């Protein structure tokens, strides 16, 4: 295969406006499948979580999973959609061995939720409103494993089919075309998917683990000249299965399509596959408008009818959504945009909130979690919550610091020991005798030594350069193993040297 030409990203977005669109498939965490009683579970022995319904045996009929319908309504409400009072299932036909009936039962003309929006907040705080076209219910297909030399479909000699996933409930969230993101398009793509993931997690309707395929994203990208109003021809990059990859895939398609268009060639409407190893997309099936799924209403199911009472009941069950919670916490805590965003990015909102609830001030909770604890976590390559340091530890640490039992430097040391499993901050201070030395008698000897050893500094201080006293504090701290109270040392030094306190 010849290398594909791409422009630099800067060149691409200088000449073209990207238009994005996303289809996100969310696998629901219901106990049973969309249309059968088979368990909806991940990672079991192949073809064990199946009934005759999931295998598309002759004579079987589907029955709609009520919990899945409720999940779809909740997601629809969270995405500010209109919930259809009546929606139907339809059959989408195509022959493929992972599809037991050779049609997928899905929603076509009327989705259960439609015409909504979601606010997406970029890293610098810019808010983008993404319009949602629809969110509809459908069933997942089985899983094919191509067996052969490369594991790729084209050189496979046979394939194994696991129908455990066949019939797992899915909600497909389809965005409207998103334009105007310009050079922020890759970032917007990533944050949009992150936002949807965060919402389905908050709703508790999906495990939303992208590495397991619980949440799968197809990214549509097209380019149009900067001043154009008509969208260009799009490509659909399938199954981009990590947040990072989504940004890269959009970035790559923008650069690739820009090169194609700049060369005067047309973009081919097609499905493309994301290649994680090379961070490129490769062409798949050429998609034309003639793709014919021969939809017609599913005659084996009756329409889903949602009355106001049901809707009200589900609306009342909705948790506070992540974006609303963040706005509330940011106001309540009075933190700066930058600090708050770091906290969000570190996934530390919950733990900070718990720390504040346990008695710490927002400033203190933020200082510790986003300061020393974040540094320890970074060094250990884990999340801040995975160090073994609890909100109660932080409150205790803050109390010790405020009381003057330890200083900041000691506190950082204590945190390290807490993370090492040596107990609570108080226990660490006790066991390692880390309390600060503020006993004047214990300090006097060290101060006298410092004065005696540094006559030139003393001379400067006495000549009026009072800030030089710092050069005497250092040796005292050193002599006391860092446990001296620096404020008290300064005070005693000033008295000895006859300065005004």
């Amino acid at each position, binding site marked *: 295969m010849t290398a594909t030409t791409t422009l630099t990203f800067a060149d691409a977005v200088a000449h073209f406006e990207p238009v994005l669109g996303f289809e996100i498939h969310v696998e629901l965490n219901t106990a049973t499948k969309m249309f059968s009683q088979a368990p909806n579970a991940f990672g079991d022995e192949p073809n064990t979580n199946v009934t005759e319904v999931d*295998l598309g*045996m002759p*004579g079987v009929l589907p029955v*709609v999973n009520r919990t899945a319908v409720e999940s779809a309504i909740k997601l629809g409400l969270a995405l500010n959609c209109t919930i259809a009072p009546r929606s139907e299932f339809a059959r989408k036909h195509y022959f493929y*061995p992972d599809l037991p009936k050779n049609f997928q039962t899905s929603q076509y003309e009327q989705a259960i939720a439609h015409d909504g929006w979601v606010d997406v907040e970029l890293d610098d705080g810019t808010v983008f409103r993404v319009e949602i076209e629809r969110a509809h219910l459908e069933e997942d297909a089985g899983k094919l494993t191509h067996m052969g030399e490369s594991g790729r479909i084209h050189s496979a000699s046979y394939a194994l089919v696991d129908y455990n996933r066949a019939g797992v409930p899915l909600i497909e969230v389809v965005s409207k075309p998103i334009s105007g993101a310009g050079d922020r398009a890759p970032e917007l793509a990533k944050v949009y998917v992150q936002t949807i993931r965060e919402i389905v997690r908050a709703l508790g309707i999906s495990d939303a683990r992208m590495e397991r395929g619980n949440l799968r994203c197809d990214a549509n990208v097209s380019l149009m000249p900067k001043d154009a109003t008509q969208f260009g021809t799009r490509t659909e990059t399938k199954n981009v299965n990590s947040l990072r990859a989504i940004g890269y895939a959009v970035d790559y398609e923008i650069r690739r399509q820009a090169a194609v268009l700049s060369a005067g060639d047309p973009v081919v409407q097609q499905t493309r596959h994301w290649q994680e190893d090379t961070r490129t997309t490769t062409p798949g099936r050429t998609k034309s408008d003639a793709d014919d799924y021969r*939809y017609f209403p599913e005659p084996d199911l*009756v329409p889903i009818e949602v009355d106001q009472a049901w809707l009200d009941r589900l609306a009342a069950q909705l948790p506070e959504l992540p974006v609303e919670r963040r706005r509330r916490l940011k106001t309540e805590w009075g933190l700066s945009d930058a600090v708050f965003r770091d906290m969000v990015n570190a996934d530390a909102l919950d733990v900070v909130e718990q720390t504040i609830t346990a008695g710490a001030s927002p400033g203190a909770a933020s200082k510790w979690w986003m300061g020393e604890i974040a540094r320890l976590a970074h060094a250990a390559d884990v999340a801040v919550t995975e160090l073994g340091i609890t909100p109660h530890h932080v409150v205790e640490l803050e109390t010790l610091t405020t009381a003057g039992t330890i200083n900041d430097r000691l506190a950082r040391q204590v945190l390290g020991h807490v993370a090492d499993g040596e107990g609570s901050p108080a226990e660490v201070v006790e066991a390692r005798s880390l309390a600060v030395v503020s006993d004047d008698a214990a300090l006097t000897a060290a101060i006298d030594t410092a004065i005696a050893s540094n006559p030139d500094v003393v001379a400067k201080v006495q000549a009026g350069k009072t800030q030089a006293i710092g050069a005497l504090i250092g040796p005292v701290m050193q002599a006391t193993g860092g446990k001296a109270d620096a404020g008290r040392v300064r005070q005693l030094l000033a008295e000895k040297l006859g300065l005004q306190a």
Partner: protein
Amino acid sequence: MSPAEMIRLTALEMAEHLRAGTFTSVELTRAHFERINQVDGTADEGVHAFLHLNQDEALAVAAEVDAIRTAGGPEADELHPLAGVPIAIKDNIVTIGQPTTAASKILEGWMPPYDATVVRTIRAAKLPILGKTNLDEFAMGSTTEYSAYGVTRNPWDLNRAPGGSGGGSAAAVGAFMAPLALGSDTGGSIREPAAFTGTVGTKPTYGSVSRYGLIAMASSLDQIGPVTRTTADAAALHELIAGHDPKDSTSLHTQWNTLLEATTDQDLSGVRIGVLEEFQGPGFSAEIWEKFQETLDLLRDAGAEVTTVDCPHIPYALHAYYLIVPSEVSSNLARFDGIRYGNRVVPDGGGTVAEVMAATRAAGFGDEAKRRIMLGTFALSAGYVDAYYGTAQRVRTLVIQDLKHAFEHVDVLISPTTPTVAVKLGDQLEEPLSMYLNDVVTIPANLAGIPAISIPGGTAEHDMPVGLHIQGPAKSDATVYRVASAIEALIEAEQGKPFYDRAPEVPQVQGARS
């Protein structure tokens, strides 16, 4: 009582004798297998109603019922009234332990891993299952000649077709090889064979009987129903199999426990009987039309009010039906691809998945199945779906409205069941359009989801039976049984004997046990 006498009883009479101890269920079941052995034969000779016999299991169930009755006590008291009365099941209804083929090569040898809901019900009520009956492949046809396993012959004349698609069930009941059978009716597959074999067949209100385990032809039209020799037997079997099934979302929550009782009320005075303007005269054979007029006279004499009603869209029902059915067929039959079950045909030298699917379907489906798959695939394709499938659905709505209006003026609508008597084997095999016309009367009930029954209405050309078709509004199955039973009694009174006793003796097959 001799086996030959036993098998000529009605199912309800058999049930009565079993309770009274005149004979046992094992004796009764054996008598039926004996009859099957004498007249059913093979694809080459005899009636050939059965594709599979289930003798060991049937006799075991019969013995179990007998043992329970002998032991007496609460378990005997709780036996279903039809317990011990044998039944035959159309081979598009899935059964554990017996192959289910839908008369297609593509499912040859397939052993279902589950029971249809109606089969579970029948097992729970302890009716011995005699075996599986022949049909047109996937229930597509009106003569049973499209079975991949050979034709079924009409017990009234072995040179004629028994109708279809449920020719096997109707012929089994008509030839006294079974007192009861299950059929499925998408456009007349229970009623047209009933008319051709002098038996009774009901297409219940859509949703009255669970479709779970019925191999779907056209899901929005399919309905399982009883095939019997009398209206009361049909009502009794219908009551047994009816009711809501959580596995069938389209099944109704209605109660169906007054059907048998309705057959005991045979007073027709004041009953408003409608005759469709659109089904007058031409189109029906001369003798069938004459016989129908005689029946109308009987009804008037019995005090019924016979009026003509108008359903202007009914003539379009057949056309709508032959777009909706293939559309749903093309979808329902997509799963037969050789990947998960059934026959798999691998092209010479191997092939891709798509090539294996294509070869499997090319070899596995017969002509009529292929014809409907192609028509339906076209009718649903982009650019045509609205003109074909969409228009057909709009016509369906108009037919539903027409019938609804008609039932504001009459209690039931009656007509002959078929335009002609049973055709000779082979006559319609190369003329699918002519075959499709056999269903012109029966199709509207499927489109509208309403109950309809065919009962024997005498004989016409070649002394072959004709059917009388009675249909009522949705969920009025009890009314339909009441009127049908009353007409049945009138005809029987006029003839001096039940219609089924007029059937000619069925020739014994070569090598049959005497």
